[in-house]
């Protein structure tokens, strides 16, 4: 009985710790969150060469994320084309 309670309390503690880490992203004035954004604002132009700071983040610092986004778009387009062409072929088969 006591072992079971200990396990549940441990799980609750781990979940609360993860929750604190997650919700700390909602407070932008914590020093944890301030460091990255201050670095981007202060040195973004020099390090990436883009005056637009959005471009300097999503194509300079986080270009790898953009590659993932591009692959997601490619998969979306190819799946839509694949599904619709299959349906078209089925309709043609019914008419014949």
């Amino acid at each position, binding site marked *: 009985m006591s072992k079971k309670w200990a396990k549940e309390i441990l799980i609750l503690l781990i979940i609360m710790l993860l929750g604190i880490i997650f919700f700390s992203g909602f407070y932008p004035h914590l020093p944890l969150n301030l460091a990255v954004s201050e670095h981007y604002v202060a040195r973004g132009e*020099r390090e990436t*060469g*883009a*005056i637009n700071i959005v471009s300097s983040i999503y*194509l300079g610092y986080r*270009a790898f994320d953009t*590659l993932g986004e*591009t692959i997601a778009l490619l998969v979306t*387009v190819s799946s839509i084309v694949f599904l*619709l062409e299959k349906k078209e072929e089925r309709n043609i088969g019914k008419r014949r």
Partner: protein
Amino acid sequence: MEKEDKSEIVGITSRKLVPYILLFGFYLISYGHFSPGGGFQGGVVLGAGIILLCLSRGISLTEISFSRQKITLLEISMITTFILLGIVGLVMGKNFLSNVFLGKVEEVPTAGFIFLLDLVIGLKAGAGIILIFYSLAKMR
């Protein structure tokens, strides 16, 4: 689309409007690192221009110049170019997708790599939207 469906006003207006929409799309792509805009937005504007051409002139006329094979080839080659541009950074001794042709901020050709990536992403997003529209219109 049949010939009786067409409206004269829509046809003439869209014929005058489409080149400027495409020009605006390329402006958004090529000035993505200077002003608001960028790859995805400019690509969507390019796709919207071609879709307007389809709606006004008919898909069969549009597919003569912007055929499905060409658009598919553009899409595939653009994503390959994106990965190759990332490998260029590795070859030059930096990280994957790092900015290798970096100039000073005051000079005009700044952010050479970001401009190239913007162009690649814009053409790819436009090609994807046109492909989705083609397959949706053929399903009808």
